[in-house]
């Protein structure tokens, strides 16, 4: 039987995935596993979520034909405008889905990790809307480089915990959020922001983000030839690929952040440089030493600065269904400036990695290329203007 690229009954994608959780979290994970499919397939749940996505988030987001970009690259380029979602990135699709789920599981407190702060802002927003207590774990280093998002989360009423252990970025923020959950197992739901973590999170987050590809499918009258998306944990990419996975004609491209270069020791290109291991309770590819110690990654973009990757991506990579490339800090910065001048759209540094990949491709006149513009660049103004000097 052909692989359908989706999770199996034991929570694995081929060799990857699973729920490598300590016994202290067994009950929470089991509760989610037993209920998530039923809840998110429920008609009332779907109506409520779909209503919020339309009225509150502003979906469907446009699939914008980028004329000047298309002219430059001599092909047809469409930008999926997730940057126009309320809160400025695709993260809100998942945060709202999970908070509705948390309510149905009778949870009163929400925790989340954040790197760039986009998932933190989305979660804080959803918590304000649903009147839930919200606690966001964020690395000390990310708090400094994403100051506007920190201010937004505070305005929205979230409590921010600065994480100073380890790399002081997304990896350790995730560790601390998991530890919080171990210490508060009954009243708390953990809204993981990407397609990472123990089963059922990768599948659940993928389902909430799959609306991106569902809309792309409706917005184009025939399938695109290529879809390009950046990959840290990989939620916007899975969202953009999801409904095209079975359509082998569509070339899917995930772009990792190679930082100062894929061969340098300052990189976040997990598939290019990682080996198999367990990180944040799932089996996946991990940047780690020969002794299994996780290496601190590097990327100019806080949202891609992660030493692991969603298990489904590891699986899609192994099966070669998706091509994975990588883009350096410098190339991403150039692409962010380029899009700003060409189309009047300032992209997030994460999304700029996907845009930069256009330079690495041989495209035909007749190609129809969708780039998932996962977020807007307001949060990155500091980096964008500083690096420009």
């Amino acid at each position, binding site marked *: 039987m052909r692989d359908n690229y989706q999770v199996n009954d034991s929570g694995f994608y081929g060799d990857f995935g699973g729920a490598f959780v300590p016994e202290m979290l067994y009950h929470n994970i089991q509760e989610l596993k037993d209920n998530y499919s039923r809840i998110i397939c429920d008609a009332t749940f779907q109506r409520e979520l779909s209503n919020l996505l339309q009225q509150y988030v502003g979906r469907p987001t446009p699939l914008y034909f980028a004329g000047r970009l298309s002219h430059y690259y001599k092909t047809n380029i469409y930008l999926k405008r997730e940057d126009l979602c309320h809160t400025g990135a695709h993260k809100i699709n998942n945060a709202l889905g999970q908070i509705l789920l948390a309510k149905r599981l009778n949870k009163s407190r929400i925790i989340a990790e954040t790197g760039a702060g986009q998932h933190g802002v989305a979660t804080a927003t959803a918590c304000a809307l649903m009147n839930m207590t919200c606690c966001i774990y964020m690395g000390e280093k990310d708090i400094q480089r994403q100051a506007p998002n920190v201010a937004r989360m505070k305005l929205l009423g979230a409590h921010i915990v600065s994480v100073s252990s380890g790399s002081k970025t997304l990896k350790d923020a995730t560790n601390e959020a998991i530890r919080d959950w171990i210490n508060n197992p009954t009243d708390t739901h953990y809204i993981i922001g990407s397609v990472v973590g123990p089963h059922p999170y990768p599948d659940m987050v993928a389902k909430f983000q799959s609306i991106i590809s569902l809309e792309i499918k409706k917005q184009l009258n025939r399938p695109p030839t290529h879809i390009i998306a950046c990959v840290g944990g990989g939620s916007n990419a899975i969202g953009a690929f999801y409904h095209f996975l079975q359509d082998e004609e569509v070339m899917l491209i995930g772009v990792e952040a190679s930082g100062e270069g894929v061969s340098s020791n300052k990189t976040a290109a997990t598939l290019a440089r990682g080996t198999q291991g367990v990180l944040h309770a799932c089996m996946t590819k991990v940047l780690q030493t020969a002794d*299994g110690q996780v290496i601190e990654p590097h990327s100019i973009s806080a949202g891609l600065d992660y030493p692991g990757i969603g298990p489904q991506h590891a699986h899609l990579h192994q099966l070669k269904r998706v091509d994975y490339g990588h883009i350096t800090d410098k190339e991403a910065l150039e692409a962010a400036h380029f899009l700003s001048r060409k189309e009047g759209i300032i992209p997030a540094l994460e999304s700029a990695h996907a845009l930069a990949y256009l330079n690495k491709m041989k495209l035909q006149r007749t190609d129809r290329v969708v780039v998932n513009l996962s977020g807007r660049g307001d949060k990155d103004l500091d980096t964008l203007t500083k690096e420009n000097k």
Partner: protein
Amino acid sequence: MLDELIESGKSPLLNIYFTAGFPTLDSIGEIMRGLERANVDIVEIGIPYSDPLSDGPTIQNSHAAAIKNGITIDLIFEHLSHCSSRIPRIIMGYFNSIFVYGIERFCKKCHENAIGGVIFPDLPIEIYQEKYRTLFEKYNIAPIFLITPQTSEKRIRYIDSCSSTFIYAVSSSSTTGKGKNVQLAHDYLSRLRDMELKNPIMVGFNISSKSDFDFVTHYASGGIIGSAFIRHITDSTSIEEDTIKFIESVKTGRL
């Protein structure tokens, strides 16, 4: 050695956890000698990991420091091979460390170094049973599983049926060394006692003093102390002697 101790039915058992390579790279031998001289019943050797999810700050910091000191799994086994101590040994490690090291290679080394049992807090029993049980059985290494106040009776009985040395009962829903009051666990611990499981129960997490130890061993066969011991030897300049002093304080209540 671990088998014999458990079969002897001795109680209460004192199990001390320490992080290999902390506070110094070469301290494994000194700690083991101190534990032996102080008549500790079981020693639990922790493999340092960059992302110890179940641990609070004390053990986290000891792991980070040990990694910085240059500890590796091979070095741990090398140090252990030079220890003449006869205390039954178990290893506690996060699954990634063992997976990357190579599971069979790890089992062989455990076998050569008299490791009787292993605790992988993040390897669920289902995955262990399905994928790794045969290997560990081949080398006669017993898996030790955790249970918590949230673990259902049905699951506890299943874990009991898959265990052969002891069951590690986490005293409350927490990470290690959280400072939650272990003496509030009366209901949970009496429920466990009344289940009359085939394996003895050792209670761990948030045990730091004689009174905590006496409390948990009123219900269970033994207690496990980690963070409190790590704190005690963090700045020590004579590790072997300080190890003995700490154990005496747990046994007598005087420090």
